[in-house]
């Protein structure tokens, strides 16, 4: 009996590997072509001094990387990215969870809420950028108008280096919170209905059900959401580029906008590639270490 089961196990393992290889083949091909090749290309380019278009480029070894390590602008951009990352996680995930919980408790009656709450994610960054530059305008914008009602003066949010980043983060949160809402809604549906029923029979209130039962079950989803938000905010580009272009000064400069400027407008493709490579290394390190940390905790 025992013998049979071990051999069965071996067969099963071998079978597992075969099936896994089959299932992972398409993704591997795709990754190699579209992602590994560009990454390798980026690292190669980063060893050249190159304007990006000329046929001849000069090999300079790790010179670009040394410059990168000492480049204040890059580290300022990285710091800005970190601020976006922390605030995004702190704002978007709880807010998304709250919205999802509300919808989950309310059921189908609340579809209108769901659809409207979701609209920001559907809008293109061009439209969002345009509307918010007007909404936040110092003179006549929404914030200044509200401040006027309370006897305050005009408030310059986007033009002030101290507030520009926070303002843009608010808009980013506005845009992406709906994603986490849908994400958690899907996670809620993964909780079997009988769990909820059993809790109700035991006399648990909705609040108790949420805190004691649903929330712990949602922890894995929250961890993934945090990773997603982390990676997303570290490589963020769109809205910043549309709304502030990194300004005023360097107050909203991000790694991605900096990389873009160096590569495509300053004719520093070699250095731009080093910035991209640096971004890639930093982001994957942060993401992988965080994953290790939060998953390690689970096992302990």
């Amino acid at each position, binding site marked *: 009996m025992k013998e049979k089961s071990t051999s069965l196990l071996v067969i099963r393992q071998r079978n597992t590997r075969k099936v896994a290889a089959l299932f992972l083949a398409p993704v591997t091909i795709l990754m190699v072509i579209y992602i590994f*090749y560009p990454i390798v290309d980026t690292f190669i380019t980063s060893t050249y001094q190159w304007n*990006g278009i000329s*046929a001849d480029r000069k090999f300079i070894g790790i010179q670009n990387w040394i410059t990168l390590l000492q480049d204040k602008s890059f580290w300022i951009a990285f710091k800005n990215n970190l601020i976006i990352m922390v605030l995004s996680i702190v704002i978007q995930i709880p807010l998304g969870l709250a919205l999802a919980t509300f919808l989950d408790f309310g059921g189908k009656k609340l579809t209108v809420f769901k659809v409207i709450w979701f609209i920001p994610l559907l809008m293109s960054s061009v439209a969002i950028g345009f509307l918010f530059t007007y909404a936040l305008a*110092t003179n006549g914008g929404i914030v200044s108008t509200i401040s006027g009602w309370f006897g305050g003066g005009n408030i310059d*949010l986007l*033009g002030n280096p101290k507030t520009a980043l926070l303002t843009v983060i608010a808009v980013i949160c506005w845009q992406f919170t709906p994603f986490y809402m849908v994400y958690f809604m899907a996670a809620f549906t993964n909780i079997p209905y009988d769990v909820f029923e059993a809790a109700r029979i035991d006399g648990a209130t909705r609040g108790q059900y949420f805190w004691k039962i649903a929330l712990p079950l949602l922890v894995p989803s929250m961890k993934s959401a945090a990773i997603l938000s982390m990676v997303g905010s570290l490589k963020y580009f769109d809205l910043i580029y549309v709304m502030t272009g990194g300004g005023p*000064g360097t107050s909203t400069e991000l790694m991605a906008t900096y990389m873009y*400027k160096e590569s*495509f407008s300053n*004719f520093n493709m070699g250095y731009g590639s080093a910035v991209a490579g640096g971004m890639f290394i930093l982001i994957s390190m942060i993401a992988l270490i965080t994953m290790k940390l939060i998953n390690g905790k689970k096992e302990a």
Partner: protein
Amino acid sequence: MKKRMKRLAAFSMAVLMAASMAACGGSGGGSSDGGSSSGGSSSGDDKEIVYWNIGTESPDKDIVTAAVEKFNSETESGYTVTSVPTQNDSYKEKLVVAMSSGECPDMYSCWSGGPMYEYIDSGFGQPIDDLFNNSEIKDKLMESAIGQATYNDHIYAVPYQNVSMSGIFYNKEMFEKYGLEEPATLADLENICATLKENGITPFALANSSKWTGSMYFMNLAARYGGLEPFQNAVAGTGSFTDECFIQAGEKIQEWVNAGYFPDGVNSLSEDDGQAKQLMYQETAGMLLCGSWYTGTFSTDSEEFYQKIGWFPFPAIEGSEADPSIMIGTVGDQFIVFNCEGEKLEAAFECAEAHLSDEVIDLGVESGKIPPVNGIEEKLTDPITIEVVEAANNASEIQLWYDQYLPPAVSNAHLDGLQEVFGLTMTPQEAQESMQQAMEEYNAQKAE
């Protein structure tokens, strides 16, 4: 349900295989592609000339289309030109991507200055001296336009679109109401500002989140304080961007910021979204310093409003020795550069000439443009455009916009620093030092 799933799976599998096969072929070919082909992004038809431009919206679109159609219908070269209009915002990026793969179009329209020099240096622009000297456009084009198309003593481009000089647009009704007149000196201008400010009107409509808009003020002030020599020396490496005239210009700007001559939150307003002209239209601002393309912007937005608008060049500074006739602007705005040789180049050049044919010029004039050709003032009827051309013709020198003229890295240093000057978060000295540093780095790299 299950059946449908299976069918879906089978279908996806088929598509996937096709796609991955195509892509595999791609990765093999892609790496060996060394950037040798100069055939442009054409479909292999060597009688086709691919022409990239930014004529996506009227009237630019109409002008380019008219020129290309004229060429295609009249040419005896056997070539046809395919125009590829592309959006302005990311046009430079698209050119870089194409050029880096050696797939530069046969001819393309771009701005003069730093980036254009970079394209030429990298081998994506052919000198056209012979063709040009034998062509009738040689005498037709304004001398300053040819100057902006010249690089390292060779002519590389055909300017065709617009003469754009920076100057000050103002609301005539408003000036009348407060008894103001066009200023002759900077002191007059500042008096106007003070009067407008007293009456609750923002003197200058400026949207400086776009950065280059603020540079208009800086360039004009610097040219009036010190002429163009300090700038030229700084670029050549024999002078410095920390020269007195630049510092004075920055200080004057900060003085005006402190006096409230610019709108609140000037660094957050966006030129692209129309927040500068909005202030003019709402008549909460009295003046706007920008390129003379604004005539077209105003008149297409509202002909009625345009009637209220007057224009004057940036006034002289009393006590300054600089020549007050110097203008800042572009003579051509769009320059056609060629990336082909032999017969093809001749044909492409012929198409560029078509941009300067009388009928296309008339079309340009009709839509508010000032094509950079001699005697254009006789064709113009709009009073402001005539003033602009006169100012350009009388100018002893015309300096191209800094942000176009300078190498892009220096230009960005200039724009970023100046924006902080407007925001009072940097002193003019600091901003100019960072610009100078970028220039030195660029010159050092070039010298290598």
